[in-house]
């Protein structure tokens, strides 16, 4: 129960991230704007080091701080992913912020701080740590969403996000309190054993499960807790949106799975039913409403809702599976799905961010009209991301869906897979519409002062990484598959 210095080594990546954040925040006021670019590189460097450390931590399982934090393959999987996404975000922001004339050095600090929150979330083995990590992440994101203060949309997004976030964290906390009451602890292993020792019909437990599910549902943007997503995604600066859509969702899934599998695994018959309903609702609503969007960020927001639905299929499958190791495939499929989702969604947002040039807002779907003529490479990359989001081989999106559906079928839910696939067809429509606009429509008048679209080097790196992820993992998913499988074994 006591603190040992060795524990610090285990959370070294988190510490490094926080340290870097502090350095960034401290240096920001004293640096001149050109020098402030260095902060981005500092952040990147830190993240790279962190990823190295995390990679070296793979394969072990160690508890730190008396079991509040656990360093295992599962956590490392997510931490790796999160660091990677954060790195991409820094790169994306590097050029995006210049475009937006948002010269805030604190920005990188917030990226890093929220990253540290996320890393805490996924490495936590105690509801308290999870809660704190979540709040650290959320608070940073509330601020980041409102960073474009000059625009009332950005502030409005921030306000909505904040109000609803606070509301949901109240709900989550309430659920945690009930769970604490029902099991006598906030430690996940202790909760699990307490549940195993009592009747699963305990109403307190059920109520706790529901409130916790609702709290996480908000973070995961699951219907009906999704409604903040489109507004916030649209209003927030694009780089922040990308970060939110990918990293925050990934971290939430990481914590969510750990809570529900490690902690509430004994109640899986109950929660899998709940998530089954939520999953179907999410699939339907996310895809159907995305059909009629006119703003690309909103569309991607609904798409991200829908993708949460697909990932939930894996969760449901894990809950419904009757086989001894049945849950493994379900969870692994979620891990894979979110990882693939990270690449493609981030890529899509990066392209959207790229379109933000001077007068060109680049956020209306119509703005993509004829992009293939104006910027063939950008259009092509967007095509790849859209294809992948639609889940069409040979892209990573397909592999992700494949595993999720495989889990569903294995768990005896082929009909769920059928529903999901039918809505995947619906989703194909709106992804294709973008392709159609880019490739099959002529661009409007190109006024002389409308700037040429140029990919900045940092953006190129982002796009290259995302594309490589989508394509390479689409063709050769084996490394990630085995990584996910390994990660899931740690969870058990």
């Amino acid at each position, binding site marked *: 129960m006591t603190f040992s210095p060795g524990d610090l080594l285990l959370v070294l990546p988190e510490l490094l991230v926080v340290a870097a954040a502090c350095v960034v925040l401290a240096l920001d006021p004293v640096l001149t704007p050109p020098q402030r670019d260095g902060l981005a590189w500092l952040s990147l460097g830190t993240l790279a080091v962190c990823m190295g450390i995390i990679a070296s931590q793979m394969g072990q399982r160690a508890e730190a701080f008396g079991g509040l934090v656990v360093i295992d393959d599962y956590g490392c999987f997510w931490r790796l992913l999160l660091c990677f996404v954060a790195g991409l975000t820094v790169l994306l922001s590097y050029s995006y912020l210049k475009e937006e004339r948002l010269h805030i050095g604190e920005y990188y600090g917030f990226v890093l701080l929220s990253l540290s929150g996320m890393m805490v979330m996924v490495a936590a083995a105690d509801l*308290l740590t999870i*809660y*704190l990590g979540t*709040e650290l992440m959320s*608070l940073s994101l*509330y*601020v980041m969403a*409102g960073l474009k*203060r000059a625009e*009332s*949309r950005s*502030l*409005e*997004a*921030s*306000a*909505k996000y*904040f*109000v609803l976030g*606070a*509301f949901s*964290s*109240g*709900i989550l*906390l*309430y659920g*945690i*309190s*009930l769970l*604490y*009451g029902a099991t*006598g*602890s*906030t430690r996940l292993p202790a909760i699990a054993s307490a549940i195993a020792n009592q009747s699963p019909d305990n109403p307190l437990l059920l109520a706790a499960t529901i409130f916790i599910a609702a709290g996480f549902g908000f973070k995961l943007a699951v219907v009906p807790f999704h409604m903040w997503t*489109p*507004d*916030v995604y*649209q*209003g927030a600066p694009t780089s922040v949106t990308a970060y939110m859509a990918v990293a925050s969702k990934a971290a939430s899934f990481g914590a969510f799975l750990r809570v529900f599998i490690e902690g509430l695994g004994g109640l899986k018959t109950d929660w899998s039913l709940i998530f089954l309903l939520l999953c179907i609702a999410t699939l339907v609503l996310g895809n159907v409403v995305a059909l009629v969007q006119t703003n690309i960020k*909103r569309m991607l927001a609904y798409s991200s809702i829908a993708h949460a639905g697909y990932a939930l299929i894996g969760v449901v499958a894990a809950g419904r599976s009757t086989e001894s190791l049945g849950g493994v495939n379900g969870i692994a499929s979620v891990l894979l799905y979110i990882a693939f989702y990270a690449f493609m969604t981030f890529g899509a947002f990066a392209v959207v961010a790229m379109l933000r040039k001077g007068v060109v807002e680049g956020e209306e779907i119509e703005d993509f009209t004829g992009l293939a003529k104006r910027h063939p490479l950008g259009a092509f990359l967007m095509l790849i991301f859209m294809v992948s989001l639609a889940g069409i081989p040979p892209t990573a999106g397909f592999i992700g869906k494949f595993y999720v559906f495989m889990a569903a079928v294995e768990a005896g839910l082929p009909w769920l897979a059928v529903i999901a696939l039918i809505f995947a067809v619906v989703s194909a429509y709106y992804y294709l519409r973008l392709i159609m606009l880019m490739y099959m429509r002529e661009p409007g008048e190109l006024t002389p002062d409308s700037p040429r679209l140029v990919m900045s080097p940092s953006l190129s790196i982002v796009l290259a990484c995302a594309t490589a992820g989508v394509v390479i993992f689409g063709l050769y998913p084996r490394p990630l598959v085995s990584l996910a499988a390994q990660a899931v074994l740690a969870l058990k």
Partner: protein
Amino acid sequence: MTIPVSYYLILSAIVFLTGVVGVLIRRNIIAILLSVELMLNATNINFVAFSQHLQDLGGQVFVFFALTVAAAEVAVGLAIIIALHRSKDTINVEQFNLLKW
């Protein structure tokens, strides 16, 4: 020590739901935040009651952290409100509807 823990639960449920109702029906964003505070307090009552019931300090520690987080949230929230008020001249939540559909 004869108060059953369920009494506390019921009290907290009432307070919690009052908070929820507040979030749902108040138009003033500050009032909404106040309602959120109600929800958090309800939670805290739960924690403390359980902590006492279980003879476990963990609940109280949790409350401590919840308080901290609440304070932080308030700080951020009020900053957002001020910024919003500055840009829109209102803190009526109904007026924040640039982003929709």
